[in-house]
């Protein structure tokens, strides 16, 4: 039976009254106790362009009462060029609720291409600063490269999924950092998996699930169908024993599950349900535990669409997905088609399309927001903790952007927002909200993942 519709679980076996660590006692507490987000941290990129500037962490003002609303109010420049900042994460989240003295204060910001890892102190929320840099050579010593997903783990340490070995080939693995942001070593036994990408864990079920992109040497230069035909792209989910750190079960999603990217568990720590978007096959899979085993079933199928001037039907390319904090809605983006969708997942096995917004992409008319011609489609998503404001950016990965949306390099990315009505299950594009990454002194920049200082719908895990 579904346990997804119980967001306010009782914690019979998990006493929270003495909680001293960071975060919120429950997902419901995050919704009720949090204030609306005032700043957003957004990855800004110049890698792979002729703009002679390093990638940066943008501080975006998202407080409607502020004079600088929708503006980039600060930028933390990385010390080097060439990083391709991609995904990033906090040093602590609600899973560390029992670690006294720990603060959700440091962002761990990896360079996807450089394998350099930056630690940014956000004590001054609007004026964060880099306090430590782990150089690529230190990472290569563990025969790992291409850092991707950053999650804190319940004991105060940090685990990062790594997509390749030191040479950018397979296998990938996981790197563990200690509380002082030094490298502790590998989290996993090397060779346990071949490909890696995103991961999420659910401590009460002693499970972690990881997905697969490809070897860095395969996806870095761009997307080549020849590589798909050669089986160089992933299509598996790995279910790990979280405590012991080994793979207990692997599910091959098959032809319909090619390139499974973002994986999200429901936030309720009781839930043994999650979703993964298969980017290339343009499907969403529901995974769940039943009878002591994990299963994955395709629950949403995006049809490819004919496009004038294209020889083949265009896939939607489901590149990001997230679940609202109350576990009621699933949102995902079709980067090529140019739409953001909202599904009611009260019954996790049967998502029901609630609403969608078209903006950018190849079918997202009306494309411009205000006078701004968009380039790229909706991509990385982030939702407010109360589930009422959905934000997104438009860049996927510099070399893939150049292939599918060549104008994005010239015009830069935008950050957009929709107002969500969780009660009615509707969304509407906020035409007044536009953060223009095309309009920066050094030149147009790409924009990627988004996070709030007080936690968001894709970073917090509960014990």
């Amino acid at each position, binding site marked *: 039976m579904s346990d997804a519709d119980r967001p306010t679980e009782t914690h019979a076996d998990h006493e929270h009254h003495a909680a001293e660590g960071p975060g919120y006692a429950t997902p419901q507490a995050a919704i009720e106790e949090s204030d609306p987000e005032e700043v957003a941290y957004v990855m800004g990129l110049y*890698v*792979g*362009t*002729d703009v*002679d500037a390093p990638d940066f962490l943008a501080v975006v003002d998202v407080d409607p009462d502020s004079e600088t609303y929708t503006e980039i109010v600060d930028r933390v420049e990385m010390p080097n*060029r*060439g*990083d*391709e900042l991609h995904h990033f994460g906090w040093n602590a989240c609600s899973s560390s609720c029992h670690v006294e003295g720990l603060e959700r204060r440091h962002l761990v910001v990896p360079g996807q*291409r*450089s*394998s350099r890892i930056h630690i940014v102190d956000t004590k001054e929320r609007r004026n964060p600063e880099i306090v430590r840099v782990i150089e*690529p050579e230190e990472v290569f010593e563990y025969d790992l*490269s291409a850092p991707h997903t950053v999650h804190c783990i319940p004991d105060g340490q940090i685990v990062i999924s790594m997509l*390749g070995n*030191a*040479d*950018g*080939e397979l296998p990938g693995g996981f790197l563990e950092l200690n509380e002082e942001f030094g490298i502790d070593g590998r989290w996993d036994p090397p060779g346990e998996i071949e490909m890696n990408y995103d991961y999420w864990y659910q401590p009460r079920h002693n499970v972690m699930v990881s997905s697969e992109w490809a070897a*860095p*040497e395969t996806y*870095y*230069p*761009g*997307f*080549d*169908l*020849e590589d798909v035909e050669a089986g160089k792209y992933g299509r598996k989910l790995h279910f790990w024993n979280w405590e012991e750190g080994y793979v207990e079960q692997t599910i091959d999603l098959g032809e319909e599950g090619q390139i499974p990217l973002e994986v999200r568990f429901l936030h309720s720590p009781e839930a043994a349900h999650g979703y993964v978007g298969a980017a290339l096959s343009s499907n969403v899979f529901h995974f769940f535990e039943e009878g002591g085993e994990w299963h994955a079933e395709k629950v949403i199928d995006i049809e490819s669409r004919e496009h004038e*001037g*294209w*020889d*083949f*039907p*265009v*896939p939607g390319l489901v590149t990001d997905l997230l679940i609202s904090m109350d576990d009621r809605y699933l949102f995902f983006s079709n980067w090529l088609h140019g739409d953001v969708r909202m599904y009611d997942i009260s019954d996790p096995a049967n998502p029901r399309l609630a609403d969608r917004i078209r903006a950018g992409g190849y079918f997202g008319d009306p494309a411009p927001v205000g006078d701004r011609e968009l380039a790229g489609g909706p991509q990385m998503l982030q939702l407010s903790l109360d589930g009422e404001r959905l934000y997104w950016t438009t860049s996927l990965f*510099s*070399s893939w952007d*150049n*292939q*599918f949306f*060549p104008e994005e*390099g010239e015009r830069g990315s935008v950050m957009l927002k929709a107002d969500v009505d969780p009660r009615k299950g509707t969304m509407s594009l906020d035409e007044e909200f536009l953060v223009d990454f095309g309009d920066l002194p050094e030149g147009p920049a790409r924009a990627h993942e988004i996070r709030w200082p007080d936690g968001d719908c894709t970073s917090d895990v509960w014990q």
Partner: protein
Amino acid sequence: MAVSHEVVLERSDRVETIDVPGTETVLDAAERAGIALPFGCLTGACATCVGRLLAGEVHHSRPPRALKDRHLEAGYVLLCIARPRAPCRIRVGADVQSGLVENPWK
């Protein structure tokens, strides 16, 4: 052995010439001369630094893993691991990377 070769770097909007010792990569020599070329991994895996050899000869000091045979045959080179073996003319800049793989659906 530290023979230097003249390397001409061509972009759509400008042409620059540098001297590259045979012991140095084209990317390092360009950095040293204050010319910013795109790069990423610095290990030959990502092709962010890719250039196209129009004349001359380079040697890749590690396997150029980001390039397929068809790219190597077409004269693409990875400037983070390429050392000149003769005077070279190389097309550089971000648009060289864009030409590496096409949109497969178009």
